[in-house]
C-alpha cells in the first residue's frame, strides 16, 4: 500500500508544485525570470506554499485519527506514510495557512485558518439504496446491484461535463460499497460552499424520507433537460434491461406492493393486483415475470382510459425511485470535508481504490479489483528481474495506474500549467502597463 500511496503522493505533488516537464515554446532572448526557472525548476508564477497548505489525514489502526497533517515535499509525505503506516489516507482542502500550524494562527484571533481551495467531490454509497435492492444490504455489494453505481457515474459524469463544463473528473472505487468523484478543474476547486451546495441540489431528486410514503416527487408538467436526458439515456434502459429482472422487482407480493404504493389510483392498483394474484397461481409463461408485470403496469397507465398526466408520471416516478443516483449531500456541500485518497487499500476488503473509466464504467467489476494480497503475490512471482521503479507495471494494478496518469493526471497537469502561465503573463502585463503609465 505504501507504494501506491507514494505514487499517488508524487503525482499530487506534480500538480501542486507545477514541475515543468514538457517543452513549451519560449520566446528567445534573455529574461531574468528564465533564470529563476533555471535555478529552482519552478515556474515563477507558481505558488510554492500551495502543497504545504493541503491537509492530509491519516487513520491508524485502532481508529486513531491524525488530522491536519501537511507536507512540504514528496519525500516528506512518503516518509511519513512509511513510518505511520496508515490504514487510510484522506485528502482535505488547501487552507489559507499550513494546517499543521493552525493553532499558532488561531491565536491571532483573526480567523485566518480557512479552506481556500478544494476539489468538488461526490460520494455515493450503495448502502443508501437498501430500499431498492434485494440482493444485498448494508456494505455488501454484488454484480446484481452494482449497476446502480454505474447509473450514478453515467448520470453525474455527463452532467458535470456537458452542463457544468468541467473536464478533469476522476471516478474512484471506494474499495467496498461505492464510488467517489473528484472534479479537479481550477474553477471547481475554487467554488464556494454555496455554489457547491447548488450543484449538489441540482443533482438531487427528492426521494421522500423514512416517515413519508411518497417516494419521488417530480413536479411540473415536464422534466428539466438534465432529468429528461438522465431518464431517456440512462435510467429507463437500466431499469428495464437490468434491474427489473436482476432485482426481481415484481416477483413477490411484498415487492410489487411497494411499487403499487406509488400509484395514486385505486382502480389501477386493484386491477393490477387482481391480475397478479391470479397470475401467481398459474405461471406458465417462460418470460420473466418481472418484465410481464412491468409491461402490464405500463400499458394500463398509458392506456387512453386513464386520465391525466399524473398517472403517466407514475411510470417515471417508479423508474426514478429505483435507479436515480443518491448522493451523500453533506460531502459535496462543504469545502472542508475529507475524502479518501485514490489508490488506498480498503482495510476491510483489502481492495485497492482504483479509478473507474466513466466511458467504460459498465465493464467495471468491483469484485475483480486487485487486492493487496494479490498484488504482493504478483510481485513475488515476478522475482527480482525488473527495476524497482516499475514494479507496479507488472501487476494487475498497472492498468489502473496507467489510466490514472494518461487520462486524468496529464491533462490536468497541462491545464494547471496553462492556468499558471496565463495568470502570470497577465500579472506581468499589468505591472508593465502600470510602469508605462
Amino acid at each position: 500500500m505504501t507504494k501506491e500511496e507514494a505514487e499517488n503522493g508524487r503525482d499530487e505533488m506534480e500538480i501542486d508544485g507545477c514541475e515543468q516537464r514538457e517543452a513549451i515554446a519560449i520566446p528567445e532572448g534573455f529574461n531574468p525570470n528564465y533564470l529563476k526557472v533555471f535555478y529552482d525548476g519552478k515556474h515563477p508564477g507558481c505558488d510554492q506554499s500551495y502543497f504545504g497548505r493541503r491537509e492530509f489525514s491519516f487513520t491508524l489502526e485502532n481508529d486513531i485519527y491524525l488530522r491536519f497533517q501537511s507536507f512540504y515535499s514528496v519525500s516528506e509525505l512518503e516518509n511519513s506514510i512509511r513510518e505511520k503506516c496508515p490504514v487510510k489516507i484522506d485528502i482535505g482542502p488547501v487552507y489559507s495557512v499550513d494546517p499543521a500550524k493552525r493553532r499558532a494562527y488561531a491565536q491571532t484571533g483573526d480567523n485566518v485558518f480557512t479552506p481556500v481551495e478544494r476539489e468538488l467531490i461526490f460520494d455515493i454509497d450503495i448502502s443508501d439504496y437498501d430500499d431498492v435492492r434485494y440482493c444485498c444490504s448494508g456494505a455488501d455489494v454484488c454484480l446484481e446491484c452494482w449497476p446502480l453505481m454505474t447509473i450514478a457515474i453515467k448520470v453525474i459524469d455527463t452532467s458535470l461535463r456537458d452542463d457544468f463544463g468541467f473536464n478533469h473528473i476522476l471516478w474512484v472505487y471506494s474499495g467496498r460499497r461505492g464510488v467517489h468523484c473528484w472534479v479537479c478543474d481550477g474553477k471547481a476547486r475554487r467554488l464556494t460552499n454555496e455554489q457547491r451546495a447548488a450543484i449538489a441540489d441540482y443533482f438531487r431528486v427528492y426521494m421522500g424520507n423514512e416517515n413519508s410514503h411518497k417516494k419521488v416527487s417530480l413536479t411540473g408538467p415536464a422534466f428539466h433537460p438534465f432529468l429528461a436526458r438522465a431518464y431517456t439515456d440512462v435510467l429507463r434502459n437500466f431499469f428495464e434491461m437490468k434491474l427489473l429482472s436482476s432485482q426481481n422487482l415484481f416477483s413477490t407480493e411484498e415487492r410489487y406492493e411497494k411499487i403499487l404504493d406509488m400509484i395514486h389510483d385505486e382502480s389501477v392498483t386493484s386491477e393490477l393486483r387482481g391480475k397478479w394474484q391470479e397470475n401467481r397461481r398459474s405461471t406458465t409463461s417462460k418470460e420473466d415475470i418481472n418484465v410481464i408485470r412491468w409491461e402490464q403496469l405500463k400499458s394500463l397507465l398509458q392506456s387512453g382510459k386513464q386520465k391525466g398526466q399524473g398517472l403517466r408520471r407514475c411510470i417515471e416516478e417508479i423508474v426514478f425511485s429505483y435507479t436515480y443516483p443518491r448522493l451523500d449531500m453533506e460531502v459535496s456541500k462543504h469545502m472542508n470535508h475529507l475524502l479518501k485518497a485514490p489508490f488506498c487499500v480498503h482495510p476491510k476488503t483489502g481492495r485497492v481504490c482504483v479509478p473507474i473509466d466513466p466511458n467504460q464504467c459498465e465493464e467495471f467489476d468491483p469484485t475483480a479489483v486487485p487486492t493487496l494480497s494479490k498484488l504482493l503475490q504478483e510481485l513475488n512471482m515476478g522475482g527480482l528481474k525488473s527495476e524497482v521503479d516499475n514494479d507496479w507495471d507488472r501487476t494487475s494494478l498497472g492498468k489502473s495506474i496507467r489510466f490514472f496518469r494518461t487520462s486524468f493526471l496529464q491533462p490536468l497537469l497541462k491545464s494547471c500549467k496553462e492556468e499558471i502561465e496565463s495568470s502570470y503573463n497577465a500579472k506581468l502585463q499589468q505591472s508593465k502597463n502600470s510602469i508605462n503609465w
Partner: protein
Amino acid sequence: MLLTYIGVDKVAKEGGVFFNLFVYSGSIPMELPEVYPACEVENKAMRGSPPKTFFLTRKNYYIEMPLTLKYALRPNSQNSRQLKKSVFTLPLYRSAPVLEVRLEDFELFAMDRLRVLKGISDGLSRGKKPEEMEQLEKDLWRANMRHPEASEVVNKDIISHFVLRLVYCRTEDLRKWFLSMETTLFRYRFRHESAEAQRALMAKFGLSYKAVSSSEFECVKDKLGQVARSLGQPLPTADAIFYKVPFEEVPELVAGRRVFIHKGNAYIASTQVVSLVATQFRSHLSKALILTNRKWTSTMREQEKDRLAPIVEALCTSYLGPDYSQPKGFSEISVKDIDDLAKSSFPLCMRHLFEKLREDHHLKHGGRMQLGLFLKVGAERFDKEYAYSIRHNYGREGKRTDYTPYSCQKVISSTPGVGDHHGCPYRHFSEENLRAALNKMGVNSRAVEDIMNKVQNRHYQLACTLTFEAVHNSSCDAGINHPNQYFSDSQKILQSKIQSAPEINN
C-alpha cells in the same frame, strides 16, 4: 431628563472609520447619573447655532457606518438633507447618506425593520408559497416602514438597516439569519421596481451582461422551452431576453434546476435577473457583516460594554426569543435519565430521533446534528455515548460551523432524505405516521384533529404548540419556536407540578 437629538461624529481609527453617535440634551441635565467628559467631542463645527451645553450621556450610541457624514444638527428635522432622488427607491446600502436622526427614531426604526424581517422569517418557516410571500412582504413593509414625512421614508429604510447590521453582526447564527432575511426582502422589493430601475440597479452592481443573440437563442430554444415547461411557465417567445452568465453567479437557480445550463453557462430569463442581483447583494452584505463583526469584537464591544452593548443585545433577543447557544443542559445528565426526559419533555422531532437512535444505534448526519445539538453534547461525546457508531470524516476543527442548537425554522426547512429521521415531523411525516406518533405521545383524538388542521395549513409551529398544550394539559401562549424552548417550558411545568403535589397531600 430631556434627551432630544443625537449627533454623529466621525472618529478616525485605524483600519476604518467609526462614527460616534451621541446624545446630547438641550438643557443642562442635572439629573444625569454620569456625565462623560466633553472632550470626547472633537468636532463641534456645526451649522446653525450650536447648543449651549454639550453632554455625553450613558445612552450614547456608537455605531459603525461606512458613511461620509457631516454634522447636520438642527432642532427641526424638516431642514434635514434629503437623499438625492434616483429612478429607484431601493437602496443598496453600500454607504449611508448624509442624514440626521432623532434618538427615539434610532431604536424605533430598527424595531420596525425587525418586525418586517421577523414576519418574513415566520412566513418562510410556515412554508408559504412565493406569491404569498410577495404579498406578505408588501403588507409588512407597508405596515411598519412608513414614515409620516414622505421624505424620511428612504432615510428610515437606510438607518434601520445599518442599526440592525450592528445588532446582527455578532454571531454566525445572527449573521446568517439577518443575511437571509435581508436578501429575501431585497429580492421582493427588487421585483416591484420598474424594468428601467432594475436595469439601473444591475448596472450599479456591475452586472452588465449582453443578451443572448437571436442566432444563439435559436440553438437553445428547445431546451429553454423545456425548462419553462418544467416550471409550469409559458414558453419563451422569440423576443424574450435571455442572459448567459457563469452558473456560479446564480447558485439558487442552479439548485432549483430553474435554468438551462450548458458548458458552465446558465441561460437566465429576464424575470430571473433578480436572482443574479440578489446573489450580489447577499455577497456584499455578507462581507460587510464580517467586517462589522471584526470591529465589534476587536474594539467596540469593550468600549461599549456599558452603553451600546446592552442595547444591541436587547434588540436581537427581544425578537428572536432566548439565546440557546450557550451550552448548558444535558451535559450532566446520564443516558438513563434522558430516556425519561425524552418521554416527558422532548418535542416530537427530537423524541422521534431519540427513539430511532435507541432502536438502530445509529443516526445519519442530519439526525445526529439535530439531536446532538439539542442535547448540547459535543459531536464527539454524542458519538461515543449515544450513537455507538462513528464516522469521522466530518472536519471538526477549522470548520467554523456553528454548533448552536437548531431552531424550529431550521428544522422545518431541512430536507430529510432516504434513511433520514430528522426534520420537523409536522412537516415531513405522512399524515398516517404523524397521527400514530401523536397517539403514542398520548395526545387525545380531538387535539389530534386540531393539530392535523394546523398541519394542513402549514402552521407547523402552531401544530407543535398545540401538541405541547395537549401533552402538558397547560397553555403555551408564547408558542413554540425552538426545540430547546419546548424542553425548558415542559420542564418548568413538570417541576412546578412536582413541587405543588405534596402541598395538595398535606
